């Protein structure tokens, strides 16, 4: 559905993205992950035909983003980083305008707008002026705008930015619903979001792809060792030392008083040993559990490794 090859873009001397290549299949939900300024928005701008790439090709449904951009623009719905809202327009009129811009015939415009208002739960604000809405509603109008012509492909640049937790959950649900019938690319620097919505993640760092994989694969690939969490009632440097003395333990650190993370070799199976140790020394064990690496750790590890390599 979407094929990107060796895509590069420079703004003057600064290279925003350097030779990106990836594919997105029909019906997939792919997350772009990366720190601010990594090139996520630039890539999305190129895919939605707003700016041409400096080199490389990007094809959507077989159409080239540069040569046949008009065809592509019929297929995509795009929510830029800043939602493109006319502050002085009424929500309903704005959505009707967006629908007309995207070639929705005049006679279908009303039903298209009403559907999208329903989908994004904008009913109670549909007659209000956009500039007076809260940030959350504005963001939803932005999403509605990308959906109004029912495109095959949705490109959403940080769709949940500026929303409160309840709204985030709603938008997430909406995106999950949309994922059933659309191909979606979304970007974020908020990790839990990507974890919950996307099946595949493309991690971009400094204009290059750091990793492309499914979430599970990424987490397991990066778990070069195992990690245990130990919580005890006491806290002293003696505990730290004793823990470090255990066989197969690579590193121990005290996160908070009485809370230790223990990194050990893969398949070390040292829980018994540690439990015994704490019982013998009367540390007052509260909790001992394996800690899996969150995407957050994966992300940090990947992007930091990248920087160290340079």
């Amino acid at each position, binding site marked *: 559905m979407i094929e990107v090859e060796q895509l590069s873009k420079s703004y003057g001397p600064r290279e925003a993205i350097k030779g990106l290549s990836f594919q997105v299949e029909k019906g997939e939900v792919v997350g772009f992950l990366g720190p601010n300024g990594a090139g996520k928005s630039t890539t999305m701008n190129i895919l939605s035909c*707003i700016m041409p790439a400096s080199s490389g090709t990007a094809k959507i449904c077989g159409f080239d983003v540069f040569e046949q951009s008009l065809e592509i*623009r019929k297929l995509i719905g795009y929510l830029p980083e800043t939602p493109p*809202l006319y502050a*002085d327009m009424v929500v309903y009129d704005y959505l009707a305008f967006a629908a007309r*811009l*995207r070639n929705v015939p005049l006679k279908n415009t009303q039903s298209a707008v009403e559907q999208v208002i329903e989908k994004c739960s904008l009913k109670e604000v549909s007659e209000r002026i956009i500039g007076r809405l809260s940030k959350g509603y504005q963001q939803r109008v932005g999403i509605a705008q990308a959906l109004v012509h029912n495109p095959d492909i949705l490109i959403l640049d940080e769709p949940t930015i500026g929303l409160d937790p309840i709204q985030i959950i709603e938008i997430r649900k909406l995106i999950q619903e949309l994922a059933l019938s659309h191909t979606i690319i979304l970007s974020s620097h908020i990790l839990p979001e990507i974890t919950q919505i996307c099946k595949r993640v493309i991690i971009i760092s400094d204009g290059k792809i750091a990793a492309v994989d499914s979430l599970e694969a990424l987490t397991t690939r990066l778990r070069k060792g195992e990690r245990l969490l130990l919580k005890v009632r006491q806290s002293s440097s003696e505990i730290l030392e004793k823990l470090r003395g255990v066989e197969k333990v690579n590193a121990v650190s005290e996160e908070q008083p009485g809370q230790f993370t223990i990194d050990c070799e893969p398949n070390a199976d040292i829980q018994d040993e540690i439990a015994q140790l704490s019982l013998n020394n009367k540390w007052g064990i509260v909790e001992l559990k394996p800690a899996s690496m969150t995407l957050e750790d994966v992300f940090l590890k990947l992007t930091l490794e990248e920087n160290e390599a340079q």
Partner: protein
Amino acid sequence: MKNMWIIAKKDLGSFFNSPVFYSLTTVFLILNGFIFFNILNFFSLQSFQAQQMRGGGAGLNLNEMVFEPSFHNMAVILLLVIPLITMRSFAEEKKSKTFALLLSSPIHLVEIIAGKFLACMIVVGLMILLSAYSTGYLMLIGQPETGPVITGYLGILLMSGCYVSMGLFASSLTDNQIIAAVISFGLALFMWIIGWGAQASGSGLGQLLEYLSLITHLEHFLKGLISSSDLVYYLSFIFFGLFLTHRVLESSRWR
């Protein structure tokens, strides 16, 4: 065509929703009305004197003495007003990032520019139409020649088209409305007075400068004459301005 109208309709909506349009129209109508009143007053005084001295106002002409100066003055006021109408066209879209919506829609850049041009022209046309009560009044109480009045309005509209296309060009250069207004005002004024350079330069260049001036081409229209050279001048001026706008917007995508 359809897409152009969609854009134009949206722009017209925001014109009529904003106080800018209403304040501009009010100022335009007041200034225009005041000038019209004074010109008419002067004319009636003259004809009154002529009547006393020569027994009849022969040689006094409503077209030459009222319509022509009114049109001239309207051209000056439009020079001040139109940059304020066109300044937001692209600057505002860029500032509020709404341009991305237009650019990611299946619509040609040419259609966007044409739509915005159309919207500005409709607004200007509406303002001129509102001020036409003075013409109507003169038609009622006097017997002016209608030909020069119609061509006068045509000339004013074409000249406004030039202002608008320069204004759109200025607006495409920046995302700041004030800078856009300043640039388009400067450009329009320069194109107005460029003919003054004719005296200082030689005959060849002088003629060229004279020809380039916006105001010299209005004269024939005010006299009731539609000459092809004036028409070509105004239309190519408008086209050139819109062409530059297109180039600027297209190249800004590449940066």
